[in-house]
């Protein structure tokens, strides 16, 4: 029971991070029908932006309040990562719109390699550590020497994710921008006929997806205290798995999928074998694609026209 509780906490934390990344995959897929393979690397870049920002704030400017540092870092990472993603869409995807379906995906793979190599060269290939930012934990229960703990950083991750998702849901459901975004997702030509600037809406989709990934990146950095140039790949593919599991194109599906993948991975590690945790996560991708290609909350393809 105590192990179960502990794994539940860990799994939800990890799942929050996957969910935030998964939204970027699912939004972009929804609006232009491509899998943005560079999204995982955008997440990695955001962790580096976060790292640089934290170091600048602590050593150069000398801010000591952890919450202030975190808040500033989050904003900075969201802005810069958004810019990076905007530029990627502009340079690597937009010129290929209207080309054959595979072209932007190949371009995305190229972008993914470019980003990780760029960070490798610019920041070096080693792990970049960060001293623990929020080391405190709350001991929830203790039995036979086994402590069930809830770390402050886990609380932060879950709380920030929940808040962000709420804001994001509001943006998509209630604002003109979100409506334009959904309209483009459902019928780009019609959206243009209603005066919506489709290209700009697609750009904004990339920026929003990247901003969410940036929060995930900063959280990841804070949680593990270390990041390296190759860290975009595995979390990226897992978040993609989460998006597929939840039903690609579905926003609540991406969050649900993220949480499930996080939970499955942690429970698998705790009860079976930590070496095979990635195998467990990716097996889900295969199983879902074969038996349930529309995912958990994906829409069935039947629609009255």
């Amino acid at each position, binding site marked *: 029971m105590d192990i179960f509780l502990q794994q539940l906490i860990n799994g939800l934390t990890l799942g929050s991070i996957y969910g935030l990344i998964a939204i970027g995959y699912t939004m972009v897929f929804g609006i232009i029908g491509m899998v943005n393979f560079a999204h995982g690397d955008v997440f990695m870049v955001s962790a580096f932006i976060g790292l640089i920002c934290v170091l600048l704030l602590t050593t150069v400017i000398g801010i000591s309040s952890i919450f202030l540092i975190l808040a500033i870092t989050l904003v900075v990472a969201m802005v810069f990562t958004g810019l990076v993603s905007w530029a990627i869409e502009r340079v690597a995807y937009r010129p290929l719109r209207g080309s054959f379906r595979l072209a932007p995906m190949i371009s995305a793979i190229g972008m993914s390699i470019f980003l990780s190599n760029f960070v490798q060269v610019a920041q070096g290939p080693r792990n970049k550590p960060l001293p623990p930012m929020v080391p405190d934990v709350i001991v929830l229960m203790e039995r036979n020497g086994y402590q069930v703990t809830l770390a402050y950083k886990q609380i932060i991750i879950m709380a920030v994710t929940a808040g962000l998702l709420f804001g994001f849901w509001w943006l998509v459901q209630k604002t*003109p921008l979100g*409506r*334009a975004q*959904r*309209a483009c997702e*459902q*019928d780009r*030509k*019609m*959206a*243009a*006929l*209603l*005066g*919506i*600037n*489709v290209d700009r809406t697609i750009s904004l989709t990339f920026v929003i997806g990247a901003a969410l990934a940036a929060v995930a990146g900063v959280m990841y950095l804070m949680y593990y205290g270390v990041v390296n140039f190759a860290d975009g790949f595995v979390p990226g593919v897992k978040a993609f798995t989460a998006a597929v599991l939840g039903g690609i194109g579905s926003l609540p599906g991406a969050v649900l999928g993220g949480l499930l993948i996080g939970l499955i991975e942690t429970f698998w590690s705790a009860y079976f074998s930590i070496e095979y945790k990635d195998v467990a996560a990716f097996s889900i991708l295969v199983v879902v694609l074969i038996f349930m290609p529309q995912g958990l909350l994906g*829409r069935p393809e039947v*629609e*009255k*026209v």
Partner: protein
Amino acid sequence: MTAATATPLLSVRGVKTYYGNIIALKGVDVDIKEGEIVTLIGANGAGKSTLMMTICGSPQAREGRVTFAGRDITRLPTHDIMRLRIAQSPEGRRIFPRMTVYENLQMGAAMEGGTHFAEDLERMFELFPRLKERIGQRGGTLSGGEQQMLAIARALMSRPRLLLLDEPSLGLAPLVVRQIFDAIRMLNETEGLTVFLVEQNAYHALKLAHRGYVMVNGLITMSGTGADLLARPEVRAAYLEGGH
């Protein structure tokens, strides 16, 4: 004819449109004056919808010129053309299926800025009371007639200077067609709305319109007043005989 001014509101001159290498419009001239209802009739595949979409810049004309209110719009991107207050209720209606009726109407008002939204919404409910009953329902679950009403209402929400209607009668019961055509006539008479109507239902369209054009194979072959075209034997033979 109400308020026929010297320069037309919309003028299409020598427009040629291609899909890849296939030519769809082979040099089309059309004029629409402020306050007119003009109809374009023709068989399936004649290029009627292509002309509608070319006016909106999607696809753009490869040759020729489209001017709206004195401004050359041939090379403008679609969203900028629509922002000059042209609205289209397109072929196939293109309702956003996973948005509610209310949201679809909000999308129609997207470029209008929302200042008249509540007032315009009430007008649409008067025009098509059915939409009021369906307001919270998703667009994809509406019947064909309701979708058509929604498509027209959505176009009207932007307070257009020119309304382009592509086959509003397609697949609808005669009673619904009548209701929609009555609404168009009413808007034209009371508000001076300018309408360009593409129809296969030639009889009703020519009855409704001030003027009409006949399109065959990407070319305009005849034009005249609605009554004039209705009386012509060629039009009768090609588009009216054998039941309409």
